[in-house]
């Protein structure tokens, strides 16, 4: 049965290919005919004579400018400047040359019988709206787009010394909230495009599309083996940022509806670099940088710490310190002090990058081949590093008649990550400040007579991850008569991931004489392959002042995932630890193969009247294997419209200062199928538990074949304005996304056997927001320029409906009218002066503090966020700096510590605890853990509003300074760069990095890097 279907998929794939060839042949006659015609015309022109060869160099403020199109005005004669900026063209002596390049002001020069014409071009903000935007299945001119699409290009990405492109996007785009979850390389990111839409924690990831190929963002690996990382690793680690030409983020219904069921959380389109025509160009660059933690916690010193401990024992009525209170009973040196944060996480990571690329091509064929390596060592003690290598190839070819075109792009990326199995950040903040030295006099690990666990021993436990990722895509297109174009995109991805975590016996105190028989290993093997075929037909026609563009297409996608988690223990030698066959006990926890299939039919019709009134209709019919029979298909669609009112005669005449004005709006429905595979099946799975020598089979869930898509209705209105020839350009947009039909476990009475059932709940989550972008060209001179970009997002998340919330298991989690990112907390009222214990408001007045009293709502969504970017150019220098700001709340350190007085360090702020009746103290009575009232009160304190702090911040996210070295060697261009990331931070938050939500994990590093780039 399965075989049969695979056969079908392959058949379709083959059919797609065949059709291309068929078409190519059916047009052979026509091509021939066209070619003959062109040759004929050429002969005619040459016969007219009166021509000469004109040469020259095109430059801009940074040096030579390759890729500039030079046309002879009024003719079809054109050429492109090569990579040294040189060009050569034949024209009549009285003709006019036009130099044009996207992003630059067009230059028109009369030849006037000259044979050498050198031109300097200037960057021009005013042409930015001419920039073509990739909308996925089609492209659109920025000024004509009806949807909400944000874009960053390689120019911005290159300025940041980062290994994951998501960190290069932070602070640069309105409506895009990105938080890095760990400073350990190879880690993950949380990305939210216009807020949380789904109540499922795993249901808020956007769709990533790399050169037309969807790239699954589902977590790979297992938390058993990737124990260093707080969240799943980011799939975009497998993409080399310097291979990326541009990233477009599709936000509203108009832009995302064509992605149908997968567009609900936005779409991230990544376009890789392509070759350009001209002489072969070599680029090589190298960089070296350093990374360090940005902010330490302010912890107690030894004197403060011991005073608190002694007070705690006194409070608990203990006069003789117990034998295991090593910190206070004299076992450990009371005068010793170690800054454990400095010792264990205060190292410097060294980052090295090396990059080389070759590109070039003729007017018909372009190519680009690049290779890159990235290594990053660690801030932890020891030899740990993250290595990454990537190759990227892009090839495109156009037939003589420019009708047939093929584009290939492929990237292969290898990551090798070796990290300690446990992030030392937690222990560095908890170790007593007078804990013993790490090494003894002989240089061996010091166990101080077994009175502590040496944190460095934990480094013997390693987490290794190897990831190989391939993304390849070919697009074939053929221009048909009458404005038709046929196109097929064929893509393939292959991701292979091996992960292991070891617990060798060397992590234990040697006094226990634990040998390799106590060593163990967890191994994860996972892989994911997918292919996609997308045949499309496009049509374009201009009738009078109107223009119609239409697109129809289909998608067939198949993804197969394998995952296996194994365990082995009891080895004869630690050298055999990575060999599962050497384990005396081994177990396989799971060994799963899952298949995901996806099919769609999509279309778009765009009407444009006088380039003033634009209407855009998109639609998609989607089918997904994640839903049960009869529920697999659904329709999605959107309507978008734009009115370029600045083109109206009246506006043009009366409001001359207004260079551009557009109103646009869109409404539509997108969906979400991120619920994992096979949820609709009535199945039993291996429970992994043995009984009577048999691994049991366990019913997984209550059978509900009837659940269906989560739908997200998006509404947007926006105003785009350009003033003073677009030197001031601003966009204000308002959106409202309502996500309903929430796919979530519907709470059920446990008497059914389960407490929930996968089901569509009539709960609705609303995200509204205001986004503002502003770009100003403050100064624009030949040798000096200054531009500013600003973006601001004011989002609001709200649960607007949830039938039966009060009686459900979600009642302590959500409140109608509040964000879905809230916590319900106790209200802290202070320290009781008589008992010295923290007190909280008894909301329901029943004399008891229960979960029913935790009614204070704190919202952890950002109130607003944005970025301010400045670019200053002076002669050969260019300086970029980006500030990022966020207004938000975050947990503070109280959530991570136990009641002060116990064994282990505490934040310095706990000084000043209550001592005797009548004291008005900020902190409660210290206890070693025996005062159960105080311990319980501390537990509530950590889940009260006192554990939440203002974590707003203003951060100098990125600074990049570059200098183009004046070239004395012909054809050689050299650029030096100095880049910094996370440089300065202004925040009221006291407990580490405010941006960071994975408390006690390594926060993002401050990176400073120096680089050089050569082009020839």
């Amino acid at each position: 049965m399965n075989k049969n279907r695979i056969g079908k998929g392959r058949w379709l794939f083959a059919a797609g290919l065949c059709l291309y060839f068929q078409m190519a042949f059916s047009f052979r006659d026509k091509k021939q005919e066209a070619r003959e015609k062109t040759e004929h015309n050429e002969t005619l022109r040459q016969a007219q004579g009166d021509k000469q060869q004109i040469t020259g160099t095109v430059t801009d403020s940074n040096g030579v400018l390759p890729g500039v199109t030079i046309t002879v005005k009024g003719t079809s004669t054109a050429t492109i400047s090569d990579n040294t900026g040189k060009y050569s063209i034949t024209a009549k002596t009285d003709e006019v040359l036009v130099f044009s390049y996207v992003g630059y002001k067009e230059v028109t020069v009369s030849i006037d019988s000259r044979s050498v014409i050198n031109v300097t071009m200037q960057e021009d903000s005013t042409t930015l709206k001419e920039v073509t935007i990739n909308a996925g299945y089609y492209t659109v001119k920025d000024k004509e787009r009806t949807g909400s699409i944000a874009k960053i290009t390689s120019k911005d990405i290159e300025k940041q010394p980062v290994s994951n492109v998501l960190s290069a996007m932070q602070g640069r785009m309105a409506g895009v909230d990105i938080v890095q979850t760990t400073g350990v390389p190879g880690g993950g990111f949380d990305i939210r495009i216009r807020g949380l839409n789904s109540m499922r924690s795993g249901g808020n990831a956007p769709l990533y599309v790399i050169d037309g190929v969807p790239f699954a963002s589902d977590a790979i690996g297992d938390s058993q083996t990737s124990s260093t990382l707080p969240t799943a690793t980011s799939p975009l680690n497998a993409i080399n940022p310097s291979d990326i030409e541009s990233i477009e983020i599709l936000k509203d219904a108009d832009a995302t509806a064509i992605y149908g069921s997968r567009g609900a959380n936005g779409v991230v389109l990544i376009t890789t670099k392509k070759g350009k025509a001209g002489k072969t160009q070599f680029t090589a660059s190298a960089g070296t940088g350093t990374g360090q933690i940005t902010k330490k916690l302010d912890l107690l010193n030894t004197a403060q710490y011991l005073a608190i401990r002694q007070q705690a024992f006194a409070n608990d009525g203990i006069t003789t310190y117990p034998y295991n209170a090593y910190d206070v009973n004299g076992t450990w040196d009371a005068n010793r002090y170690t800054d454990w944060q400095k010792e264990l996480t205060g190292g410097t990571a060294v980052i090295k990058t090396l990059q080389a690329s070759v590109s070039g091509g003729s007017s018909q064929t372009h190519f680009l081949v690049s290779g890159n390596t990235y290594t990053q060592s660690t801030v932890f003690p020891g030899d740990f590093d993250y290595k990454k290598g990537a190759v990227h190839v892009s090839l495109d070819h156009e037939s003589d008649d420019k009708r047939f075109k093929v584009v290939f792009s492929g990237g292969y990326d290898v990551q090798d990550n070796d990290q300690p199995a446990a992030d030392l950040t937690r222990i560095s903040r908890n170790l007593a400040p007078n804990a013993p030295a790490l090494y003894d006099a002989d240089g061996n690990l010091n166990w101080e007579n077994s009175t502590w666990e040496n944190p460095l021993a934990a480094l013997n436990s390693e987490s290794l991850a190897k990831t190989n990722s391939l993304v390849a895509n070919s697009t074939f297109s053929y221009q048909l008569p009458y404005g038709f174009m046929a196109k097929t995109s064929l893509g393939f991805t292959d991701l292979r991931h091996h992960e292991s975590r070891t617990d060798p016996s060397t992590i234990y105190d040697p006094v226990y004489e634990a040998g390799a028989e106590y060593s163990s290993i967890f191994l994860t093997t996972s892989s994911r392959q997918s292919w996609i075929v997308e045949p499309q037909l496009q049509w374009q026609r201009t009738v009078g002042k109107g223009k119609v563009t239409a697109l129809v297409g289909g998608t067939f996608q198949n993804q197969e995932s394998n995952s296996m988690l194994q365990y082995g223990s009891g080895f004869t030698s630690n050298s055999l630890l990575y060999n599962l066959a050497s384990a005396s006990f081994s177990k396989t926890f799971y060994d799963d193969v899952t298949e995901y299939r996806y099919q769609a039919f999509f279309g778009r019709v765009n009407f444009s009247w006088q380039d003033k009134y634009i209407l855009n209709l998109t639609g998609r019919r989607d089918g997904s294997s994640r839903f049960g029979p009869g529920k697999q298909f659904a329709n999605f669609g959107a309507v978008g419209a734009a009115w370029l009112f600045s083109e109206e005669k009246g506006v043009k005449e009366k409001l001359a200062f207004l260079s551009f004005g557009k109103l646009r709006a869109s409404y539509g429905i997108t969906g979400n199928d991120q619920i994992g595979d096979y949820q609709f099946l009535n199945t039993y799975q291996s429970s992994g538990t043995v009984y009577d020598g048999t691994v049991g089979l366990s019913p997984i869930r209550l059978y509900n074949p009837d659940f269906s898509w989560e739908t997200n209705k998006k509404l947007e209105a926006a105003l785009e304005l350009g003033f003073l020839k677009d030197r001031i350009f601003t966009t204000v947009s308002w959106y409202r996304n309502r996500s309903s039909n929430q796919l979530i476990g519907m709470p059920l009475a446990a008497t059914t056997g389960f407490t929930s059932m996968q089901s569509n709940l009539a709960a609705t989550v609303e995200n509204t927001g205001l986004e503002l972008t502003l770009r100003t060209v403050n100064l624009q001179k030949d040798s000096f320029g200054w531009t500013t970009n600003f973006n601001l997002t004011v989002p609001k998340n709200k649960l607007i409906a949830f039938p039966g919330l009060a009686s459900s298991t979600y009642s302590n989690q959500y409140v109608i009218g509040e964000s879905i990112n809230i916590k319900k907390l106790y209200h802290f009222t202070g320290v009781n002066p008589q008992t010295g214990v923290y007190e909280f408001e008894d909301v329901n007045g029943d004399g008891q503090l229960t979960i029913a009293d935790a009614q204070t709502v704190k919202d952890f969504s950002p109130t607003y966020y944005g970025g301010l970017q400045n670019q200053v150019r002076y002669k050969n220098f260019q300086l970029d700096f980006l500030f990022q700001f966020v207004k938000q709340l975050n947990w503070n350190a109280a959530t991570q510590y136990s009641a002060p007085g116990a064994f282990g360090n505490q934040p310095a702020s706990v000084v000043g605890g209550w001592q005797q009746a009548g004291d008005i103290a900020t902190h409660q009575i210290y206890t070693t853990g025996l005062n159960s009232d105080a311990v319980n009160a501390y537990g509530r304190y950590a889940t009260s509003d006192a554990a939440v702090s203002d974590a707003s911040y203003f951060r100098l996210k990125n600074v990049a300074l570059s200098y183009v070295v004046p070239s004395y060697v012909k054809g050689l261009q050299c650029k030096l760069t100095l880049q910094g990331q996370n440089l300065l931070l202004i925040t009221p938050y006291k407990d580490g990095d405010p941006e960071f939500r994975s408390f006690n994990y390594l926060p993002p590093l401050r990176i400073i890097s120096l680089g050089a780039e050569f082009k020839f």
Partner: protein
Amino acid sequence: MKNKLKTISIFWPVAIWGLLLCLATGCDNFVDVDQPNSQLTGVAVFENNTTATAAMKDVYAKMRDNGLLTGKSVGLSNLLGQYIDELVCYQTGITTAEPFYTNSLTATNGYVQQLWNSTYNQIYSANAVIEGVTASTGMTTTQKNQLIGEALFVRALLHSYLAGVYGGCPYITSTDYQQNSTVHRLTTMAVYNLCIADLEEAATLLPESYISYERIRPNQYAARALLARLYLYTGQLVQASNEASAVLNQTAMYVWEPDLDKVFLKECTSTIWQFSAGGGYANAQEGALFVFNAGPPPTVALNPLLYTAFAPNDQRKNHWIRSITDGTTTWYQPYKYQQDNSSTTTTSYSIMLRLAEQYLIRAEARARQGDLIGAKEDLDFVRNNAGLSPTTAVTATDLVTAVMEERRFEFFTELGMRFFDLQRSGNLDATLTPVKPGWNTTDGLWPVPQSELLINPNLAPQNAGY
């Protein structure tokens, strides 16, 4: 001619592409996928005896590892032991067993909720076996009878404990979630009677001999042993002693183990039914829970009241209890299961039904019916083995009291046997008020989980006191 060529060259590609796109919408079954390789459909599981048996064994594994019967800290052996006068809690906080020890349960208590949930999940799995096997076309009648018998037995067993601690409960006999989400509670007696009906059917379906050699799957006599208990609980004394006799008469199968140190080993021949241990070198989980090697106890220890209540020459005190001292304080621990989980071979399984209970059931039933000689004989058999002299009780009432007393010393920390004895004899308040400061009359039942009452109002009213 030229025009015609043009028409053709446009027509075909457009037509073919149109066709392909139509095809794209046409073949909807592209998105049908096969089930994953690690899963079987509910129907396929019961098409063959091996997979159907694996489904049944998984129910035992679940009962062993979580829910009311587990030997872990969340099971009744620990929680009811602390709830009455058998165990002392050494932990603090509402996320520990402390509220059980202090008799201060609330309807939102996590354990109260979790035990309810996991037990009904186990009942669901048992019902799924009954329904799946009944509908199966690939199993023989013998195979079907075996699994249906086992599933009925499990269903009755779990409901009987639920009814005892929660004071009546819904009796679930199908997997239909719509029906099961609006069920009502039955009285404890009504539940016991439904359990009896299930067990009688199970006894007719299950074979006399064990299908597994380690007595880890119930046979007919396991069903009868449980029947004897429930007949006794419901006051059907004739049936209770008949069923106990039926078990006790199987002298070839059930041979009394005189060595107290061997009663809780997995080969013990007086075991009627036990849970197989997990994979590797696991032992009965009660061992890991109760055994500690240095004081103070990390989680739980035996209540000194119980220790001092033993007769001086009661050998069970010496063999089934172990004392630990740090020189000044002495702590006691239940030592029936002596291995924690670190042994290199598996020595013990969690025993669910054992022969001693059948003697004491018959003793009590006989005493209540007036067969005082028979009652004394059964009681003295158990006493003799513990190194005690024959009972001095003479009257029926005294004999019943003596049996109850004996049950306290024989079955301590075994799934709260004493709690149910005190409950059915109405002695909870009289016994516990003097020794448990937090004890109230309403503590005779646990609360029904708050969340369950909210989601299914048919379960109202809540038990008194919560």
